[in-house]
């Protein structure tokens, strides 16, 4: 390989890496959100009674975003949220992406009380972050996953 071809390959690589990285970030964030909100192989999902707690999840990118405005009434039930995938399309490496829930009793459900065991529906997913990352990498068709180690901050 001549030096020009080598440089061209490096340039191509430089363009390809951010695209692949962004694909991974979006897929990883989506998968984590899915595990927290509705549950799956890596988490139990948000516990549902009326569904209000589950319906209140929303994305916040770099501090933006706003909580869903849902009116509570006796006997009302709420469907699972549709976390807008469009919110994630602009995400690039370096952005701060948060999955938020402003429900006033969310902490009690997650951490438990003296009368109720903790459900840990968020922490269980955070604990599985590395395995989720591995799974997402497999889903994206990446073959070299040996060095992929991620941690979620709580």
């Amino acid at each position, binding site marked *: 390989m001549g030096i020009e071809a080598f440089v061209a390959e490096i340039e191509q690589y430089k363009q390809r890496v951010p695209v692949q990285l962004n694909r991974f970030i979006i897929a990883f964030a989506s998968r984590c959100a899915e595990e927290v909100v509705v549950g799956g*192989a*890596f988490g139990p999902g948000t516990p549902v009674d009326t569904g209000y707690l589950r319906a209140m999840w929303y994305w916040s990118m770099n501090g933006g975003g706003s909580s869903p405005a849902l009116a509570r009434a006796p006997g009302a039930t709420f469907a699972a949220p549709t976390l807008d995938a469009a919110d994630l399309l602009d995400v690039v490496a370096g952005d701060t992406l948060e999955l938020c829930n402003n429900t006033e009793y969310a*902490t*009690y459900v997650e*951490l*438990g*009380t*003296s009368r109720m*065991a*903790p459900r*840990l529906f968020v*922490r*269980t997913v955070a*604990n*599985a972050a*590395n*395995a989720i990352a*591995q799974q997402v990498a497999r889903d994206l068709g990446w073959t070299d996953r040996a060095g992929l180690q991620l*941690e979620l901050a*709580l």
Partner: protein
Amino acid sequence: MTGSFHTAIRSGMRAALAALVKATSGPSLFGLTVSSTTVATITRTDGGSFVNDGVAAGDELAGSGWSNAANNGNWYVTAVSDASLLVTTPATAPRAIVSEAPGARVTLVVGLPSLVADENTTFTAQPGQCWWRETYTAGPEQRRSLGPLPRVRLDFLYAISVFYPAGAGAAGLDGLTDALQAALYPGRVLTYNGQSFTMLSALRTGFVEEADWSSVVFSARGFAYSFSPS
């Protein structure tokens, strides 16, 4: 992984936590003045400070070295000063406590509360007595090697919810979570029945306030390897 492997992790965590020491006072010449069948005051004149030793309101003390055997055992701290502790015995298990002048060398140790709501057991909290609850969550299993008996990695989450009587203040829970943080440091390897597991990280939450209790949840992450397939 087999159920016994999860049992080993839980048991190993329990054993490690049973040895937890948050604060120690003594051995020294302490006095005990009983004011009712369940209330007493422990005093010291050795120049030391119970506050500096780390004892706080809401703590459960394990005392040893008293001349009267009934004075040894568990005490619940309701007030602390440098030179004295106001303590109570469990009302549900009253002991024949008697006053003692300083004479024997006494040691007071604070660890995790003795009242535990272990998983899969029935538990009733007692008013005024601190307690804790374990919650064990097995995480995903990841195959790390090929072959008929692959090496499998299991991540787990062990949450410790500690409850102190409301109004006891934050010092007791803060000190206890500091001790937990120090005991379950990342990289610590624990072993139980030949199975070893490694701590990854430990996080505490803010206080959860209820009418009767203040609590903190301490979640410790760890992982273990097994050659046993699921």
